[in-house]
């Protein structure tokens, strides 16, 4: 492994805004995109969630069509629009290649799942509801030469995509990887989580004593990774994915490990690859869904990894849990935190409510950092971790 | 009188925006209008206001301005004669 996985560009759209800059500003201001949603198309009862501004999405997208490599009258689903919009944000800062050296990965859990609704199924048909088809459409919009790949590993998809992509780049399998993480707030997902009784009726409170569940959200984020230094000319601070790993609890499909060893293995694997120890990690952007078991598991995993003295936050109270997009948008935030040398308070946290000691960041402030650990965990017992580091050109 | 003249020079420079001039650049006998300092009718009006504002002297007839503002010296003499 002699190449570096540089982070060239990023962009995201979320309930907090369009574009990374707008999102970062909102985060530094301490805003939350989670609000009461009363929409019978999403759930019969009002619930707390984080939604995108549809009007802005459609407006921007309609003129984006000019860029499309698909026929003029080709129609796009809402999910595809979200994904393409987030890629557009990266593209406008640094045109990304679409040639054979470039891999496009879509990280999502449910993609076009709204098409299963009877009325939509009639219009779009079964195939369009398939994840590979959505990825295909998005890839064709930009004209990628390689086949699009969909990574669907529940809530770790985004973080794991970064991990896998960085292996490909380091080993020279591909020079560039464009990763898009996207998921929508749909009746399908809301009803499912409701049936699990895991949604909070307030803005969620990760790691807090009174946490009582998560909020769902929707977002799309895109990260452009490359080993090609030529793309770095606009980056003032040079960052890389220095390590990554994924693991499985091998314990229960919907309940996290009681010991935290699964998550610990992923962290350990990432630190080993990055040749860093717990001392070198400056901050952890945790998964922190605010469900009682998840946060408890994470406190154990971080203690196993010797990271109990490093400031931890969760961004779920800002964006809600955006499933396949979460790992990407939260990594984008980490990227900007490293550039800005600022750490975000863990919104919603007041009093420690996890069994193992953790330092939960309570204030948004300047903070000197070189390495941020980003973790994620999900259904199926899966875990992933990546380390985002300040670096220099090789 | 000399003091008045020096004072007047500074006031003229300020009121008429003669920013590059120093009081000593103004010859007290040199005509203010025409060839000398090159002032014009607008400047005359400015000077009328100056007299009223700074010395309480009202010049009712603008035509008289020509005599009063012939030079810094004539101005000073007019002021001395009319000041209450």
């Amino acid at each position, binding site marked *: 492994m002699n190449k570096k996985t540089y982070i060239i560009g990023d962009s995201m759209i979320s309930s907090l805004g369009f574009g990374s800059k707008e999102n970062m500003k909102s985060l530094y201001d301490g805003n939350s995109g989670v609000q009461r949603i009363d929409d019978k198309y999403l759930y019969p009862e009002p619930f707390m969630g984080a939604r995108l501004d549809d009007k802005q999405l459609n407006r921007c997208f309609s003129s984006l069509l000019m860029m499309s490599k698909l026929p003029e009258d080709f129609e796009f689903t809402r999910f595809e629009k979200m994904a393409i919009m987030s890629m557009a944000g990266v593209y406008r800062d640094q045109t990304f290649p679409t040639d054979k050296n470039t891999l496009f990965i879509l990280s999502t859990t449910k993609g076009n799942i709204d098409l299963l609704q009877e009325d939509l199924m009639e219009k779009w048909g079964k195939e369009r509801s398939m994840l590979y088809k959505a990825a295909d459409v998005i890839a064709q919009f930009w004209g990628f030469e390689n086949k699009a790949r969909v990574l669907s590993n529940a809530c770790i998809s985004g973080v794991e995509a970064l991990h896998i992509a960085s*292996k490909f780049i380091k080993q020279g399998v591909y020079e560039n990887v464009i990763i898009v993480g996207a998921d929508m707030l749909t009746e399908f997902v809301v009803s499912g989580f409701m049936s699990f009784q895991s949604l909070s009726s307030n803005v969620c409170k990760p790691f807090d004593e009174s946490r009582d569940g998560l909020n769902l959200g929707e977002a799309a984020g895109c990260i452009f990774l490359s080993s090609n230094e030529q793309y770095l000319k606009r980056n003032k601070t040079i960052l890389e994915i220095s390590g990554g790993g994924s*693991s499985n609890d091998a314990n229960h499909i919907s309940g996290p490990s009681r010991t935290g060893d699964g998550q610990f293995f992923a962290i350990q694997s990432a630190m080993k690859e990055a040749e860093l120890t717990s001392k070198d990690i400056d901050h952890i952007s945790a998964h922190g869904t605010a469900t009682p078991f998840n946060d408890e598991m994470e406190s154990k995993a971080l203690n196993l990894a010797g990271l109990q003295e490093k400031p931890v936050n969760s961004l779920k109270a800002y964006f809600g849990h955006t499933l396949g997009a979460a790992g990407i948008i939260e990594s984008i935030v980490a990227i900007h935190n490293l550039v800005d040398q600022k750490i975000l308070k863990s919104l919603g946290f007041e009093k420690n409510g996890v069994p193992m000691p953790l330092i939960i960041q309570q204030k948004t402030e300047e903070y000197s950092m070189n390495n941020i650990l980003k973790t994620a965990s999900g259904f199926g017992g*899966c875990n992933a971790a990546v380390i985002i580091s300040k670096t220099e050109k090789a | 009188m000399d003091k008045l003249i020096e004072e007047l020079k500074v006031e003229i420079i300020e009121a008429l925006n003669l920013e590059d001039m120093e009081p000593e650049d103004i010859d007290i006998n040199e005509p203010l209008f025409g060839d000398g300092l090159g002032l014009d009718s607008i400047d005359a009006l400015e000077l009328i206001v100056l007299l009223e504002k700074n010395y309480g002297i009202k010049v009712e007839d603008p035509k008289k301005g020509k005599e009063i503002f012939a030079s810094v010296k004539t101005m000073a003499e007019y002021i001395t004669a009319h000041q209450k």
Partner: protein
Amino acid sequence: MQEIKHVYIAKSCLFVNGQLVLKGENSIFVKYLKEVYKHTDIKYSKYFKMDPLSKLGFLAAEVLLKDMKCSESPERNGIILENKVSTYLVDVKHQVTINDKENYFPSPANFVYTLPNVMTGEICIRHGFKGENAVFVNEAFDAEFVCQYIKSMYEADKVDMLIGGFVDADEDEYEAFMFFTEKDNVSELDAKMIEDLYLKSKSQAEE
């Protein structure tokens, strides 16, 4: 060169290393799966709670890993699977429960299977794999990409053993292909060879 162990299940046939092991009496997908379950001779009550996709993946792994030696460090064992329709069968089932607003009854036991990686989760639980795990959704089995992934994980020294494959369950078709790799034989791993093993099994099943 020792052949890479592989398993193929489709059209009521079970092949191990290209040899037909169990020809189903029943052509109905779930019923045939039960025959395979009996064939594996295990008692695993959780199996019956699984969705068809997980059952299929679980059984393929069961057959594949029989008599195989995995790494003793659980975090060095991994799995990567591809899949075409993701969890379409379960998705539709969940959708039906919410279509009628008057009769709204989403089921958590069903919903949890609406993620394709729950299948790999089930396999990890069964065999105690705690290492790398990934599910990619692709229109068809793509030996080249799966091998790229596998080689990459070995090169990065993330695993000692890695299962690869393609498991898919749609309305009227199902297919599972799974193969076993380990650190010591990774240099022999070749996308073309894997592709050939897959195609050979596939054509045999179609006969």
